[in-house]
């Protein structure tokens, strides 16, 4: 009983905190401390969920944003992890480009969207590529960091057993670096999702970002915040999937 309670305690405390904050906000709005034309009461936002799901085609928009996020995430992992490995293996390349990659991670890449529009047109591909470009640098850097931080003795165990370079990577380096790589993937995914929703908003193309734009222009504040809640849901789903994948790839932590 007590173990089960301890297991669920963080989730319960988290939910209670959120509900408490919403209750406080509701009270503040009803008491006139917060302008309801700037921030709608949480009860109005909850009430608008059903409306926007049916009237605004939420399932389709949700799927579109989620798929764009998934596409970007797959590209980020497929390019970012090998790029990190490449920098780990080649010292000269690492010294030459590491600071550029770090600069890329910190740059406001969303400002480059006109260039992507020219290259890929006003399409989902532009959005996916913007997400990919903004998220790939942290994954590359964190992969490099994770591989470089692998304890020397674990590498020596592999060497003493005459592992091939491929075995050394697959059986020692990669599992050792998984926790750090996943920190990079989380960061990359955050950057990617911000840029994906931001670009949907900016170019008014598909997904939840476009819906937020439309609802805001209609001054449907409750609907706008409800749509934002669905963006948060996309993010939560991605993070849960990442957590599961990490636990599967790297048990025993």
């Amino acid at each position, binding site marked *: 009983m007590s173990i089960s309670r301890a297991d669920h305690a963080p989730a319960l405390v988290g939910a209670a905190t959120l509900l408490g904050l919403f209750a406080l906000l509701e009270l503040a709005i009803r008491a006139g401390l917060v302008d309801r034309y700037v921030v709608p009461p949480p009860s109005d936002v909850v009430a608008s969920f059903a409306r926007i799901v049916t009237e605004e085609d939420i399932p389709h928009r949700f799927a579109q944003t989620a798929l764009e996020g998934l596409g970007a995430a797959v590209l980020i992992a497929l390019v970012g992890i090998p790029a990190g490995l490449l920098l780990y293996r080649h010292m000269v390349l690492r010294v030459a480009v590491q600071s550029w990659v770090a600069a890329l991670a910190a740059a406001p890449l969303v400002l480059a969207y006109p260039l992507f529009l020219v290259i890929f047109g006003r399409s989902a591909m532009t959005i996916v590529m913007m997400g990919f470009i903004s998220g790939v640098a942290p994954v590359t850097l964190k992969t490099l960091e994770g591989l470089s931080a692998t304890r020397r*003795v674990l590498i020596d165990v592999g060497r003493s057993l005459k592992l091939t370079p491929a075995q050394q990577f697959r059986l020692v380096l990669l599992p*050792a670096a998984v926790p750090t790589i996943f920190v990079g993937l989380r960061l990359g995914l955050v950057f990617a999702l911000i840029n994906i929703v931001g670009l949907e908003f900016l170019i008014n193309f598909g997904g939840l970002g476009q819906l937020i734009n439309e609802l805001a222009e209609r001054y449907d504040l409750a609907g706008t915040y409800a749509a934002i809640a669905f963006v948060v849901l996309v993010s939560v789903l991605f993070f849960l999937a990442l957590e599961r994948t990490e636990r599967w790839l790297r048990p025993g932590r």
Partner: protein
Amino acid sequence: MSDPTVVPWPRPVSAARPESVLTVDDILVRFQTRDASVTAVDRMTFDVRHGEFISVIGPSGCGKSTLFNVIGGLITPTSGLVTVAGEPIRGPHPAIGMVFQEESTFPWRTVLDNVAFPLEVRGVSRRVRLEKARDVVAMVGLTGFEGHYPSELSGGMRQRVSIARTLASEPKILLMDEPFAALDEQTRLLLGDKVLQIQQTLKQTTLLITHSITEAVQLSDRVVVMSYRPGRLKRIVDIDLPHPRTSEIMTSDAFGHYVAEIWGDLRDEASRGMAEAEASRGART
């Protein structure tokens, strides 16, 4: 009927000395630093005989771990040769199984998967390698912990997993670098007993690098004493104590005699090492 694991003592005089399975021949290791060339190991020569337990002891910084890496094939010596059954080694050799000083289990693998790792690398089928791993896990006294991860084990248990992993590869020579250095005294004694028991059961040729005189005398047939930097061979001491041994041997007069004798060899070297370390610390500040 006599116990097959008991080695008779005094040992019967044999016409032929047990053959050498490992020879360290005139090993010299020099490292180039920014300012100078440093000799870590200087012309070390000794051999390890079949079934023997031999320890290499020396003061901190004498090049013991460098020698460990040379014998394990992880460092190429500046000159000299290490041979296994007459075959010169260039790089890690399958006949030599290494146990490292630092904790070296893979945290993402269970005890059983850690121990089965060398067999997995060799392509042994899952059924066979897990069966073999279970046997070795039992040998090191970790039955019941097969499904645990290293984070769920104590330091001593983790080091036993490392030893079991090395034993699973059935090396001709077990090469260990201060495997108990990070453990408390009581755990060290108990693990020493365990290692000795395994060594006597398997007749496992074992080379232990250590800085503990009592550990060296408790476990070894011979002790190779090294000088302080550069690490040279100072003396090889035959430990004429009865087998099978346990940590109880430490209460005997003969044990105390060997410890005093080796300490006599090491005291001046250790003092020199301490003085040099203090001088270099003083120069830095």
